[in-house]
């Protein structure tokens, strides 16, 4: 291995610009580090060159640990976007500079300089000054200067970024040719995916300091694991659905989940298909490939070799569009596709099926936290305690009914910071709570929504908008009381007398698995009903499901005439209570003697309400 990064981290103040990046670049390869500006890709390159120190981790060049070495002894060749060739030196002097520093005799220097001038196609330009040659030529000089002293590795920081399109394409080709000829290990940093495809043996994609994925270009294009890589490396449609019974469901499609991208039951799953993977046909497709349904062409654009189409499909049940974005106020699915310009125009309402598709890796859980911008930070603290071990991404919804004060966003952001939710996104909403949450959910598929039952006090008397939201919720909701536990170690799942909700077990189990918590399955036996063999069987199945998720669990049977009292008694020993909610179909079930509502109102710890199936 020519370059090895092991768990490299870089911080500037409180901001982590490179997070735990590990990477190996093989001898003679051309590796492209791809990312948007601010992704930390240039910082990685600078750390390899020794121009920036790293806070954690190790860097090896050709087997030598250079982590704490100054730039000079590392012997890297670096080319900057702004060329940075020395203006007061001629082209020849620039190229010879590294050799002069190394005290190479002038005869050999001249020989090497001529070789390099020829290599980069600038023979005869040796006596020119930088201001006498073009930008493309200056960058060739910079390349020759970096290669002159036979560097251990070649580092290129957006080398073509400052050049115009035509020169860029030319230089890209010569760069590739030179690299192939010299077989010098090269790391190139760019934000241009086309450049990455054309040059790279392997590509690594970075986003906000994290190296998301590494692979050969085709593999990353066809089978990305993350949504970011999928959309950064090309267009296409991404739909979100859910996993049930080992299959990923997206409306009418039930697709097998490849072994490389394991998904948990009940987790959300994302389906990607590229524009060229869509088949349009005027008759229902005969093949048994995945069929999305009948669509309508809404837009056609001619773009030279291809014709780009935009189609609308009717809304698919329990499926959300992730990208491309759907226009506000529209339902249904938007699909982007392209057909060769020479192909006959498609029917106005063609059938849409898929030639090829990929299921993205299971995304980290996403949490939505509601914060009112005042009162205790309990819901934020709860989110923080959950997000850490779950590695969840968090959106904080600052919610102020009616008018939000001017500095409301800052207030909410500050509160999130003080609850150690440093990387959370902050959104602001002012309409009714259920509407606001629905808006957020339309953009992101959340795994859990966290809100405070009644900020500032115990939950006695839930706020009416919380109740109305819970009645219609189709996402698991965690209602937080006055106190937020620091760690979730013991979870109580309350099963219904008749049949334990499968969802309660699945979702509670998933949460317990992420948190490494123990689960108590509570079964309340109503004495007047006597022994219930069916209930016992359900409990055993639930326990088996939990064991399958590698969650430690115990069954506790409680004979009690009043289920709510029993739950309250058990609750004291647990950090989180899981109860079944009511599905969106059955309205107004939160009557005064409803168990779920009683638990919500009286239990001091957070309560997870799982919607009915």
């Amino acid at each position, binding site marked *: 291995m020519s370059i090895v990064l092991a768990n490299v981290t870089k911080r500037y103040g409180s901001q982590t610009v490179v997070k735990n990046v590990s990477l190996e670049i093989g001898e003679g390869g051309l590796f492209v580090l791809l990312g948007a500006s601010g992704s930390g890709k240039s910082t990685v390159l600078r750390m390899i060159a020794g*121009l920036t120190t790293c806070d954690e981790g190790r860097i090896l060049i050709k087997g030598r640990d250079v982590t704490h070495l100054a730039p*000079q002894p590392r012997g890297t*060749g670096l080319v900057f976007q*702004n060329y*940075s060739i*020395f203006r007061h030196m001629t082209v020849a002097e620039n190229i010879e500079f590294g050799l002069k520093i*190394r005290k190479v005799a002038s005869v050999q220097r001249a020989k090497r300089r001529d070789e390099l001038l020829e290599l980069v196609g600038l023979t005869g330009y040796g006596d020119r000054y930088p*201001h006498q040659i073009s930008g493309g030529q200056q960058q060739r000089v*910079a390349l020759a200067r970096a290669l002159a002293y036979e560097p251990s590795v070649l*580092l290129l920081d957006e080398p073509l970024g400052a050049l115009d399109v035509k020169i860029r394409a030319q230089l890209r080709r010569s760069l590739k040719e030179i690299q192939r000829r010299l077989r010098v290990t090269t790391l190139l940093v760019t934000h241009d995916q086309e450049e990455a495809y054309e040059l790279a043996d392997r590509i690594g994609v970075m986003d906000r300091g994290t190296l998301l994925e590494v692979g050969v270009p085709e593999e990353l294009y066809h089978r990305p694991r993350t949504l970011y890589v999928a959309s950064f490396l090309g267009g296409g449609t991404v739909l979100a659905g859910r996993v049930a019974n080992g299959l990923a469901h997206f409306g009418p499609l039930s697709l097998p989940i490849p072994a490389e991208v394991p998904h948990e039951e009940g987790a959300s799953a994302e389906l990607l298909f590229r524009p060229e993977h869509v088949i349009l046909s005027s008759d229902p497709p005969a093949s048994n490939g995945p069929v999305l349904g009948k669509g309508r062409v809404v837009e056609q654009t001619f773009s030279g070799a291809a014709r780009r189409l935009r189609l609308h499909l009717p809304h698919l049940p329990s499926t959300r569009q992730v990208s491309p974005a759907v226009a506000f106020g529209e339902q249904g699915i938007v699909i982007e596709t392209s057909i060769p310009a020479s192909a006959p125009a498609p029917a106005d309402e063609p059938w849409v099926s898929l030639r090829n598709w990929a299921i993205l890796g299971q995304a980290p859980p996403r949490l939505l936290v509601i914060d009112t911008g005042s009162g205790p930070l309990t819901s934020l603290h709860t989110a923080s305690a959950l997000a850490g071990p779950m590695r969840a991404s968090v959106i904080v919804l600052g919610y102020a009914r009616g008018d939000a004060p001017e500095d409301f966003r800052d207030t909410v952001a500050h509160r999130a910071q003080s609850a150690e939710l440093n990387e959370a996104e902050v959104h602001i909403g002012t309409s009714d709570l259920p509407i606001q949450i629905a808006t957020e959910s339309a953009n992101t598929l959340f795994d859990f929504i966290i809100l405070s039952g009644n900020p500032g006090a115990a939950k006695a008397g839930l706020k009416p908008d919380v109740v109305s939201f819970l009645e219609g919720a189709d996402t698991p909701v965690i209602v937080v009381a006055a106190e937020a536990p620091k760690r979730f170690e013991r979870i109580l799942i309350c099963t219904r007398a008749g049949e334990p909700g499968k969802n309660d077990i699945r979702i509670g189990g998933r949460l317990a698995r992420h948190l490494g918590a123990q689960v108590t399955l509570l079964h309340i036996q109503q004495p007047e009903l006597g022994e219930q063999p069916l209930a016992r069987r359900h409990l055993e199945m639930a326990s088996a499901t939990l064991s399958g998720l590698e969650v430690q669990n115990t069954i506790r049977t409680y004979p009690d005439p009043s289920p709510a009292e029993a739950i309250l008694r058990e609750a004291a020993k647990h950090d989180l209570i899981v109860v079944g909610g009511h599905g969106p179909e059955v309205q107004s079930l939160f009557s005064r003697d409803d168990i779920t509502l009683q638990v919500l109102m009286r239990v001091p710890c957070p309560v997870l309400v799982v919607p009915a199936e």
Partner: protein
Amino acid sequence: MNPPVSVTTRRLHSPVFPVSMLVLVLLPLLLLPLAAVFIFAFRGGAVAFLAALKAPDAQFALRFSIVMAFATAAVNAVIGTFAAYVLSKYSFRGKRPLNIVVNLPVAIPTVVVGTSLLLLWGPIGLLGRLLEPLGLQPMFTPAGVLLAHLFVTFPYMLGAVKPLLDELETTYEEAAYTIGASRWQTFWHVILPALRGGIFSGTLLTFAHSLGEFGATVMVSGNLRLRTQTAPLYIFAQFEAGNIAGANAVAAVLAVLSFVIFFFLLRYAVRPTRAS
């Protein structure tokens, strides 16, 4: 051949009036006083002019001034470039106040500079009091004059070099480091050549100001003829003594020297980075 449109434009905005107005304003302000020096210097003819210059006091004053100007320019070229480098390349606490302090000499009246130097180095000054018993007394000696000139001209070097350093992207230095050049080699081969133009014009400015310095010099030199009397002090002394011809001869030489320096400044130092 101008197209008719631009002809009409030119007629509408004829430069004759504003330019002649400007010349009229400048005539009494700048041009006539300068002319007067030369007219007076040569009123007695070339022979009298040369004779006035040949006076030993005049000879000494001119030579002393030129030596002082060279010394000041040389010392400030080094210290000023160093100051510019530190202020441009490092970030540290107190950088802003330090930036203000190094530029302060521009704003302080030169007589005040002379006074403050006397209060520090003079026989009763803070440091001078301690040095006196050792036989070290910088005031009223050429060393005192040099100290005064260094103080007064310090910002000129800085002002000429620091903008160049600020503009010089760090990637040049970084490129040199990765190529293998040490900090010193990088400074010598990469940074310093990029500053050549700035150092040149800074040195010329320092030289010119040192040549004409009066306020601080008169305080710290004691105006001792043939020992610490610079050309401007000589001119003033001769005027007071009524030797107007002698004063004017030296003044004319100073003026010519200044013209030459400014010619070089305008010719070579306006766009220093473009000069190859």
